[in-house]
């Protein structure tokens, strides 16, 4: 075990995978000399060569489209979208092409592609460097969507994504990059895509979350136990698609109460599917209505500090307070 932050865990895992398999190439804007805007690939163009660390033109649809071509011809491309906010020009290539290649060819072709995209806010990124994009893509059959929240999961899921024979969107919450540290196994561990993880055990209520919001929830859960003796189980979704409904439902079955927390705009967000699943499958287990906390339904996170703070937390300590209310309900 080594303690690392999330961005280092991603860098180390990606580096090891590239070193071990020359079918893997990295392509994207500024991934070369600049090493990416988060410095993940710093020095790699020298180490792996310009053919494997490809600075692309500023054209996201082209990046994904070219990567799809590579993936259909024996390579294992890892395409980097500089910020998740800029993935939208590639929406068609992802939804209409990558996610459908196997299906439309009746299994004759496949598209083993990884798309990495740093997402999420609270980092003063304003309207176009803060976005949550998981809801758009989790809805796309044929595409897998993961979003690790810890260094170990980041490493393990990235390895799984690269090994996966189908396209995987790998979302990296920017606020976890340096703020979240944790132990990462030395060996080449894999976290299976499609598995949620109980990050904290508890008995009074189940909190389901992912991404940076998970840490807000873990923090609130710790304080609630200390302050109020409330025991919160925290489930990390970590794989949005496929969604591990089993782990989520098992926890709700144990605690009989559920709160879902996510940063993305609330309405039609990914949390809606989680609430819906619980409502359909576990309604008679529940002692209280399901609580859902999502971001305000405004187009994106504003820049000015007071506005950004308001987006992240419209009411002070809202997760803590809503958990406490639910526990007492």
């Amino acid at each position, binding site marked *: 075990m080594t303690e690392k932050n999330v961005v280092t865990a991603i860098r180390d895992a990606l580096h090891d995978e590239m070193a071990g398999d020359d079918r893997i*190439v990295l392509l994207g804007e500024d991934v070369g000399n600049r090493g990416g805007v988060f410095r993940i690939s710093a020095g790699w163009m020298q180490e792996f060569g310009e*053919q494997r660390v490809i600075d*692309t*033109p500023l*054209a996201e*649809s*082209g990046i*994904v*489209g*070219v*990567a*799809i*071509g*590579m*993936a*259909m*011809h*024996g*390579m294992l*491309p890892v395409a980097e979208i500089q910020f998740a906010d800029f993935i939208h*020009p590639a929406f*068609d*290539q992802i939804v*209409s*092409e990558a996610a*459908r*290649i*196997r*299906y*439309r*060819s*009746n*299994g*004759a*072709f*496949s*598209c*083993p592609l990884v798309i990495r995209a740093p997402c999420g806010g609270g980092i003063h990124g304003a309207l176009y460097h803060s976005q949550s994009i998981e809801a758009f893509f989790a809805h796309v*059959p*044929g595409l*897998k969507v993961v979003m690790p929240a810890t260094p170990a999961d980041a490493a393990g899921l990235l390895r799984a994504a690269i090994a996966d*024979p*189908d396209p995987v969107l790998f979302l990296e919450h920017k606020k976890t990059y340096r703020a979240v540290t944790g132990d990462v196994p030395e060996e080449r561990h894999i976290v299976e895509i499609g598995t949620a993880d109980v990050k904290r055990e508890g008995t009074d209520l189940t909190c389901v979350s992912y991404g940076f919001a998970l840490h807000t929830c873990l923090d609130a859960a710790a304080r609630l136990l200390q302050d109020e003796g409330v025991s919160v189980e925290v489930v990390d979704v970590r794989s949005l698609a496929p969604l591990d409904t089993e782990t989520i439902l098992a926890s709700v079955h144990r605690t009989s109460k559920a709160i879902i927390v996510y940063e993305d705009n609330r309405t039609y967000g990914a949390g809606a599917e989680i609430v819906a699943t619980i409502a359909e499958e576990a309604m008679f287990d529940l002692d209280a209505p399901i609580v859902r906390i999502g971001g305000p339904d405004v187009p994106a996170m504003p820049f000015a500090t007071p506005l950004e703070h308001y987006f992240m937390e419209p009411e002070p300590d809202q997760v803590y307070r809503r958990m406490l209310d639910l526990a007492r309900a």
Partner: protein
Amino acid sequence: MSTRVAPTPHGALGLTDDDLLAMFRLVLTARLLDEAALRQNRMGRAPFVVPAEGHEGCQVGTAWAMRRGVDVWLPYYRDGGVVLTAGMTPYEIFLGIFAKADDPSSGGRQMPSHWGHRALGIITGSSPIATQVPHAAGIAYAITYRNEDAVVACWFGDGATSEGDWHEGLNFAGIHRLPVIFVCENNHYAISVPQSKQMAIDDVADRAAGYGFPGVVVDGNDVLACYAAMKEAHERARAGEGPTLIECKTYRFLGHTSDDDDKTYRSRDEVEEARHHDPVHVFGEYLRSQGLLDDIGAEELRASVKGEIDEALAAAWDAADPEPSSALRHVFAEDGPEDGAEGGP
């Protein structure tokens, strides 16, 4: 002074008489297959077909310069002539038209003419226009990366050139000097939208200069001219000299698809005038001028092709439909050999 017999144009291109006859058979097969498919459509047995009529010359002419089983093909929906040249059989094409389980393109999942054939190196295509252009560049990149001796060709219409993906794909190919050939079958319409409302230029080929590689205009009704342009582009690609954009001026004789009524946007005079340059006819005349075809030969060939098509059609009609619940399969890789995790050819 010694007399020299001028080489026949096809000879000068390295084509034998047999090549020429084979090419003519392909052009004719594409034409007769279209006609048969349209009859099926009118009979209510084929809900949707995409005729190539008018494009067969430039399709077979360009495709002939490619190597079957070696090179990589990204045709678009109108490219019946291309996929026949790549090695797809009329039977396979009819399996697609009738949406049968054994359709090699998609097992009946996609509309007809959404080509794919893994064994032949025909890359699975879709409906959204121009999305295959960056794929072609990516495959060409992989070919270079893996040191393979293969060339990629990517066909599309004039309409495709307006899409952002077209621009992004050509640009990437130019930057990396990739072994890829872009072939524009310019029939001057994107469904009903005339070229003048699609672009403010006469020749799509002029755009190649903006990507740092040559653009070539050819008469799409001249099979040999198309072949010559493609052959040169193919040689350039193999020599590491990068992409070429070939624009074939052509014309679509029929509606956009079996769903279209082209009388709403094209005068019958315009269509009639174009038919005077029918590539099947022009090519046939060339063969006659070379002594390779006469009336009897032409009739025999037509009968032979028609026989082949009729047989293929009947067999495909009798083939099995897909199982209803198989609609759930192949969303993701399944255990077992049929799903190749390695990607395409």
